[in-house]
């Protein structure tokens, strides 16, 4: 199972910002076609961990990583990985929806154009399919040529997911994707995540514990750079092993 492209596994992962140790000996194994959520208080390293998986931390100066990170059987930090291809396989959705200042159509086409231009008619098909998979097609099919910047926040976030789906990744990373959305929009994005896990492995960082409890299969609780506890969501939220986990999920701190 571990050579599945939807699997991510870390061994003794440490990450330093300069001399600050932001991740401490993290060992985690993320299962394919499931939703794994990472929870914990601000600054616990959950977003940092997420950004290890698609090497987005590489853009920050002074970041150093020790240990191993495997995607399937590939060591993504030591295996001569092509970062551009890695990031196509492991897509990311950000906290603030960030559609490009282009048309709806071009937003979804972006990834295809930069990786392998499939030709005009195939492109149209993939774009329709991608927008359908995030349930935006009916809303936007008449506005494909209009700027994506005028959409609602929720539509923008869906579009950002469609943009990933178009390049057929194995894994989708979501970094607090609902923190700027209202409760109704949040619910819709959550429904979408459940739909998407049939095809993709989904890892979500969230501040919202109810969200983690609602949507995820596995949950990891992080504190001060350590993965305190990791396991089935139902177990973490009902009978956590660690005292700290219990304190956090019952709202005693955080």
């Amino acid at each position: 199972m571990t050579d599945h492209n939807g699997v991510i596994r870390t061994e003794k992962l440490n990450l330093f910002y300069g001399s600050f140790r932001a991740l401490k000996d993290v060992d985690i194994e993320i299962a394919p076609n499931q939703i794994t959520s990472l929870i914990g208080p601000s600054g616990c390293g959950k977003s940092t961990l997420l950004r290890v998986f698609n090497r987005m931390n590489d853009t920050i100066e002074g970041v150093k990583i020790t240990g191993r990170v495997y995607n399937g059987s590939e060591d993504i930090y030591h295996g001569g990985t092509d970062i551009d291809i890695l990031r196509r396989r492991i897509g990311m959705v950000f906290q603030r929806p960030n559609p490009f200042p282009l048309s709806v159509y071009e937003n979804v086409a972006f990834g295809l154009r930069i990786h392998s231009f499939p030709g005009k008619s195939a492109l149209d098909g993939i774009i329709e399919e991608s927008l359908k998979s995030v349930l935006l097609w009916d809303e936007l099919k008449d506005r494909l040529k209009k700027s994506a910047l005028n959409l609602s926040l929720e539509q923008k976030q869906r579009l950002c997911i469609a943009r990933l789906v178009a390049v057929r990744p194995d894994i989708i990373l979501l970094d607090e994707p609902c923190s700027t959305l209202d409760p109704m929009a949040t619910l819709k994005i959550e429904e979408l995540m459940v739909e998407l896990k049939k095809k993709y492995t989904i890892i979500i960082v969230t501040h919202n514990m109810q969200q983690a409890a609602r949507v995820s299969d596995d949950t990891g609780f992080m504190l001060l750079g350590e993965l305190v506890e990791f396991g089935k969501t139902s177990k973490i939220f009902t009978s956590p092993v660690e005292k700290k986990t219990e304190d956090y999920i019952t709202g005693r701190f955080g």
Partner: protein
Amino acid sequence: MRRLKKLRDYIIEKMIFISGIAAIIFVILIFFFLVKEGGSFFGEYNIKDFIFGHFWYPASDSPRFGILPLIAGSLVIVVGATILAVPLGIMAALYISEVAPKGLKDLLKAGVEMLAAIPSVVVGFVGMVTLVPVIKTVFGIPTGLTALSGCIMLAFMAMPTIVSISEDAINAVPWNYKEGALALGATKWQIMYRIILPAATPGIIASVMLGIGRVIGETMAVMMVTGNAAVIPSGFLESVRTMTATIAAEMGETVRGSSHYRSLFAIGAVLFVITFIINFIADTYLHKNKE
């Protein structure tokens, strides 16, 4: 004491007000002066013959005031300088803001500012002693004082404007666009070409227009290297004379109030209209960029 304070406030307030509107007053005054002096010229000389006339013989017995050669001269210089400065300037801006490491970035920015600070007469004479002989030998022509020399020197002068304003526009492209593209596996070049440049386009257009504005209004450097022949040029390797150079060169020799004198003001009015339009376009795009 209280009254003194009030008086002081009043005076300061008025002084600030006057300083604030000084710029616009100057523009209006210059405009009226040009219209008055230049406008009276059109009372005695047909405006159509002025703008479309092929011959500029202001001092002959039967003077002719056709500024088409001068407009053509300015146009050739502007087009040539733009062709050279725009790609160079935009690429330099991209390099400075997106590629160059921190130390080099600061050095380059300082360099661009230095380039902007060089007086145009210095640019002119450096061009005259270095570039002009080179152009003469390279192309095997009788004189290096050509439109091409002017284009190259003025491209240098337009560069700082284009680089610094384009760089501002490129820097203003939000990081989260770049982050989104990066997370999709785009390379640095793909991000520049597909995201940053389109997003920064209004600012880049504004920078180009302001650069063109600088070129069209430039006088000293262009006068020193272009040869100043008032003929419609058929290529870049001929001497040209711009509108600005004509005004600068001839104003001192005219009789105050004569037709020649007033025709120079009329040229000034034409220049004013052109630069006004260019600035207006630049301004429109600068505002677009801010939105």
